[in-house]
């Protein structure tokens, strides 16, 4: 099995994590809240991994990642509501469909948008995020279930530890294998020097599109898991701040580092939710004063990311 080669350690580790988490959860040592946060951290890692493929590996700066995350969430929630899915078996196809739909939408949008570079790509993807939010706010005009600006309610809670962990581990392995394949090499070529990549015969437009739609699909799957963890969706959950969340994780973890993204996702969700517990409610807004400050200092100190230790797992 080539697929699992060199990843036995990772699989073993995830199994260990599963056993530990499962026993902790079922013994009732931690509250339901902590349990939810843990699953949420895995979901965030998955979505950030998508952004890392787009930005960290291929160098395409996207500020609209939350739109794809939201798209996946809405597609999956809509499917489970329409077909009345309640169990994990029915949910799996819904996850796959939302991943495929998100990837396809990313592909179609990417064809024109990825021609832009740097700042202009940033502003276009930012616009995409806003456009998506406008559509969501008006989505009750399409069908009533989507709820528009009132929010999407009544989504069954299906996401559980086994599902989240196995989907995450599977997709991390897929991503890792793509990164180590020819395509991953092309992506990193494009990131380092697009002109040089063209000159050695890489079809940069196709490669950028591939990376973009793959990254979007990862966000879509993460969104599907998110929708069925929190059972309520609101357009404001998928605005620019959410995109910045993912961006910060990618930057902290180091661009083009899968392990970095995993650590950074865990740390980030831990810090954000930890501050929610530690800070009194009226000081909660202080988080968004400290986060940008942290971001600015980080950019001055380490413009290429915080965790920059070389790792076997595909650092560019």
């Amino acid at each position, binding site marked *: 099995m080539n697929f699992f080669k060199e990843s036995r350690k990772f699989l073993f580790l995830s199994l260990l994590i599963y056993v530990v988490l499962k026993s902790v959860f079922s013994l009732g040592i931690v509250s339901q809240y902590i349990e939810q946060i843990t699953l949420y951290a895995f979901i965030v890692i998955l979505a950030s991994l998508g952004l890392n493929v787009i930005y960290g590996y291929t160098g395409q700066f996207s500020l609209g990642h939350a739109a794809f995350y939201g798209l996946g969430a809405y597609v999956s929630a809509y499917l489970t509501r329409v077909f009345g899915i309640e169990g994990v078996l029915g949910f799996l196809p819904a996850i796959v469909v939302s991943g495929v739909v998100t990837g396809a939408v990313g592909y179609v949008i990417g064809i024109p948008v990825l021609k832009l570079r740097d700042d202009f790509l940033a502003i276009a993807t930012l616009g995409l995020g806003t456009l998506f939010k406008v559509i969501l706010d008006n989505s009750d005009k399409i069908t009533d279930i989507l709820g528009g600006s009132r929010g999407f309610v009544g989504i069954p809670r299906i996401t559980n530890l086994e599902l989240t962990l196995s989907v995450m581990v599977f997709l991390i392995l897929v991503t890792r294998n793509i990164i180590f394949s020819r395509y991953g090499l092309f992506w990193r070529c494009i990131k380092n020097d697009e002109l040089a990549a063209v000159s050695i015969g890489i079809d940069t437009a196709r490669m950028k599109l591939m990376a973009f739609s793959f990254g979007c699909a990862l966000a879509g799957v993460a969104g599907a898991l998110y929708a069925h963890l929190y059972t309520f969706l609101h357009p404001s959950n998928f605005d620019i701040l959410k995109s910045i969340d993912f961006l910060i994780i990618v930057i902290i973890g180091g661009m083009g580092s899968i392990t970095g993204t995993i650590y950074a996702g865990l740390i980030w969700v831990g810090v954000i939710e930890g501050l929610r517990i530690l800070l009194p409610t009226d000081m909660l807004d202080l988080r968004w004063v400290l986060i*940008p400050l942290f971001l600015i200092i980080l950019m001055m100190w380490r413009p290429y990311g915080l965790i920059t230790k070389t790792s076997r797992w595909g650092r560019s």
Partner: protein
Amino acid sequence: MEVLGYICDQCINGLQLGAVYALIALGYTMVYGVLRLINFAHGDIFMLGAFIAYYFIAKLSIPIYFVFVITMVLTGCAGFIIEKVAYKPLRKAPRISLLITAVGVSLFLEYFLSLKAIFTPDYIGFPRPFEVTAYDLGLFSITNVQLLIFAVTGAALTGVYYLVYRTKQGKAMRAVSYDEEVASLMGINIDRTISFTFVVGASLAGVGGILYGIAYPQINVFMGVMPGIKSFIAAVLGGIGIIHGAVLGGFIIGLSEVFVSAFLSSTFRDGVIFIILFVVLLLKPSGIFGKRIEKV
């Protein structure tokens, strides 16, 4: 007749909004010209301008023309400080780092002001310094607020034009935006030129903030986000780095926003603006007045 009058009224409203966008877009376009940076914090300087004016009008009741001067000076200082503290250390860093820093500065300004201890996240009423009177001109009517906005925008525009095309400092700005390295070889102080551009751009945004506050008398710490992005779109639409392009773009964006709100639905307003952005970026990325077809 009735419909025509309605359309004319909406035109005036659109021009009013467009004039404010044009003022903000001028700063964007100038900063982009010299630094190649989308200064996301620019929209928040606009917000800062409205808040400074609020403070001086409501709390200290200082006459309006004086408020303009104070606000311009203070927002200019804010622009100067932001450039020196946040952007200057990153002059040699990758451009994306600069962009992320700009997003960070923008978020910081918003959430810092929204803290209960500093200010408030709620909407507050902006005190109008004078009574609004409408002058009926037959087909449409125009208010003194709108006249003020047009007059101030016109004056600012003339000032900027004079500054950029007739003064030595403006020549330096154009030289830096054309080629930074060669400009520095010619003895132009790059740092000073960039700082100067930031100060001018920020004080224009401050003026825009006061006008916006007078026209739409509700201010909020997050009010700068959307006008900021839309003004940037206006700058792109007119051709980024081109001064009259920014103004024309501002008017186009203002008019389309008002017309979409009036004839379609106000919820589609932001969506339409971004569709305009996509169309411009895809068909003519250099903007309406852009000469070089530059692959962006």
